[in-house]
C-alpha cells in the first residue's frame, strides 16, 4: 500500500530572499528521483506538506506553476519551529515534499470567464502559480480578461517583484500593484490598501466573472463588501483558507471547520460554501 505520509526527497536548489525584512524566502526544490516529479502532477491552488527530518512538517501553498517544469517553488515566512530551521538551510540540503494536497482553483469552471485576482501580503503564493498558468501561451486564450490587485505594506515587502514588473508591462493582464505606504519617490504604482484599490480599479462583476481572493483575514474582511458592491456574487468569489494542519490528507481531524476539512475538502472554497460553515477559522 502506498504510504501517503512518506515525503518525496528533494534538494534545495536555490533560495531567494523576497522581502526587505528577510522573513520571506522562496525555496526552489528539485526532486532527487526524477520520476517523483511526474507523480507530483499538481494544479494551481494546491498545497504541499514540506517535511524537514528532525523538525516536522508545514503546509505551504505551491508558488510554482504546473507549466514550470523541473522544480517546485514555495515561498515561506519564518514563523515557528520548522520555518525557522528552514530559513537557516542552504542550497544542497535535503528535505521532503508530500503532495500535491488539497483541491485547486476551479479551472474548468473558470474557462471562458473574466478573472479578478485579489491578493495581499504573503498570501500571494498560489496566486503566482495561477497567473503564470493563465498567462502561458497554451492557456491564455482559455480565459477572458485577467485583472490583478496585489498589495503589501511597503514596496520591499512585495513578493516576486521582478515578475510583477514583467506582468505589468503585458497587455493581456491588468496589474494593479499597490502598497499601504511608501516614501520611495520612484514608486510608479498605486498607494493604498487593497480594498479601496480594488474598489477603484477592479472590473465590475457579473455572471461571467470570478474573483479569487487570498490574503490576511483583515484584508479579506474589508475586501468582501467591495466585491459585493462590484457585483461579484458569493458563489463567484473563490477563497483559499488556512488552518493548523498535520496529516494534510484528511485523517488527523485537526483542520476541520464544521464538516469540511481544509486540507481535503479545501483549501479552496467559494464564499457561499464558507458561509455555511461555523465561524471557526
Amino acid at each position, binding site marked *: *500500500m*502506498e*504510504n*501517503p*505520509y*512518506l*515525503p518525496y*526527497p528533494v534538494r534545495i536548489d536555490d533560495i531567494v530572499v523576497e522581502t526587505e525584512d528577510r522573513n520571506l524566502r522562496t525555496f526552489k526544490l528539485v526532486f532527487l528521483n526524477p520520476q517523483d516529479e511526474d507523480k507530483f502532477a499538481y494544479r494551481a491552488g494546491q498545497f504541499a506538506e514540506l*517535511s*524537514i*527530518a*528532525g*523538525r*516536522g*512538517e508545514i503546509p505551504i501553498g505551491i508558488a510554482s506553476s504546473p507549466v514550470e517544469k523541473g522544480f517546485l517553488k514555495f515561498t515561506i515566512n519564518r*514563523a*515557528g519551529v520548522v*520555518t525557522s530551521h528552514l530559513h537557516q538551510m542552504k542550497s544542497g*540540503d*535535503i*528535505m*521532503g515534499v508530500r503532495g500535491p494536497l488539497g483541491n485547486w482553483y476551479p479551472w474548468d469552471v473558470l474557462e471562458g470567464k473574466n478573472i479578478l485576482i485579489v491578493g495581499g501580503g504573503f498570501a500571494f503564493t498560489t496566486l503566482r502559480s495561477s497567473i503564470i498558468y493563465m498567462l502561458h501561451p497554451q492557456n491564455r486564450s482559455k480565459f477572458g480578461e485577467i485583472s490583478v490587485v496585489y498589495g503589501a505594506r511597503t514596496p520591499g515587502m512585495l513578493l516576486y517583484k521582478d515578475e510583477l514588473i514583467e506582468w505589468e508591462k503585458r497587455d493581456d493582464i491588468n496589474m494593479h500593484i499597490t502598497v499601504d505606504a511608501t516614501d520611495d519617490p520612484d514608486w510608479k504604482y498605486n498607494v493604498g490598501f487593497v480594498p479601496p484599490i480594488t474598489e477603484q480599479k477592479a472590473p465590475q462583476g457579473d455572471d461571467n466573472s470570478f474573483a479569487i481572493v487570498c490574503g490576511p483575514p483583515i484584508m479579506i474582511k474589508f475586501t468582501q463588501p467591495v466585491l459585493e458592491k462590484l457585483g461579484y456574487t458569493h458563489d463567484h468569489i473563490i477563497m483559499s483558507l*488556512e*488552518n*493548523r494542519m*498535520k*496529516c494534510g*490528507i*484528511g*485523517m*488527523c*481531524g*485537526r483542520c*476541520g*471547520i*464544521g*464538516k469540511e476539512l481544509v486540507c*481535503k475538502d479545501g483549501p479552496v472554497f467559494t464564499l457561499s460554501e464558507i458561509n*455555511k*460553515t*461555523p465561524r*471557526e*477559522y
Partner: protein
Amino acid sequence: MKIVKVDKKDWTDGLAKLYRTYRLFGPVKEGAFHCFRELAEGDRPDFEFQNTRLSAKGIIYPQSEDMFVYTLDESREDHHILKEAPKDDTPRAVLGIRPCDAKAVSLLKLNFDTPDYKDPYWLDRYNATTLVGLACDQPCGTCFCTSTGCGPYHEEGLDLLMTDAGDHYLIKLLSAKGERLAQSAGWDGEIDGLAVMENRKKAAEAKITQSIATDNLRAADTLALHQADFWEEISFACINCGTCTYVCPTCWCFDIQDEVHGKNGKRVRNWDSCMFPIFTVHTTGHNPRDTKLQRVRQRFMHKLKYFVDKYETGIMCVGCGRCVQHCPVNIDIRRVCELMNSHAASDACAAEG
C-alpha cells in the same frame, strides 16, 4: 451464518492452537479494572468483565507509534531521508471485544480508509486483525448502545460473535477472517444455535436502560445548533483534559511529532485531543478555538452533527458509556445529545433552516 458450539473445557485447547497462528489479545484484570493486553502462551483472557476501561482501539491504533526513522548524520548517504519504521503486522486476534468497540472500529475505518488516501499503519494492522466479539449479557448501567445503531449482540465490525451459554460458548462466524480463525482453533462443532442467540440477544437488549434521541440531528441546521444558547452551561464544568477522547473507541484525532536523539530521529504519531487548548493553534498564535466553550461544542457537534452529515451512517458514538463514567467533572453526552436533539426540533432551528 454458521454457528459453532465450543465446550468451555475445550477452550484452552483452542487458544493453544490459535497461539500458533495469531498473536492473541484479550481482557486482563489489572487492579480494579480490565484492559486489553497481549496474552502470552497459556494465558487466558478474563471474560468476567462488563467492559474494559480503555477501549480496544489501541490494539489496531496504538497511542504512540513510530511512522518513520531517519538519520541526521551527514556522513551517511541516506541522511535526512525518511524511511518507514519497522512494523509488525503479523496476524493477531482480539478475543472478547464487545460489539460496541467492534462497531467503533468500523467507524474508525471510515476515517483511515478513504477512496483518496489509505493510512497504511492503521489499515495494515486492521487487515491483520481478527475481531472475536463477546456479546454483552450484562450491560452497564451507563450503556446506551441500542439507541446509537449498535447493541449488545450487534455484529457490525466483528469477525465472530461469541456468547457465554453456561458450560459452553456459542460462536457465530461472521466473515471469511472469522472462518479462518475458527478453523485454526479447531472450532467446528456446528450447531443450530440461531434461535438461542436471538433469544439471548433480546434479553440483553431489554436490559439496556439508557437511551438517547438522535432523530432530529440529520435534518437540523448546523449553524443554528452551533449558535444555540446551551453551550455555555454544558461547557462550564469541562476542564479540557483528554479523558473523553482517549477512552472513546470512536475518537481518532492524532498528532505527528519528530523526536530526535543525537543523530537519529523518528517521526511519531500520537493520539491527540480536540479538547486540548493548543489543538488548533496556528504558528501565528491565532487560535480558531481558543475558548473552552468552542472546544466542547466542537466535540459534540463533530460526533452528533458533522459526522452525521458527512458519512450519513448515524452518529459517531456507539453508546459504550466510557466518557460518562470517566469524565472527571461528569459531563454527560447523553444530556448533551438530548439538548441538541430537542433544540434541533424546536422553532429556533426551523426558523434558520
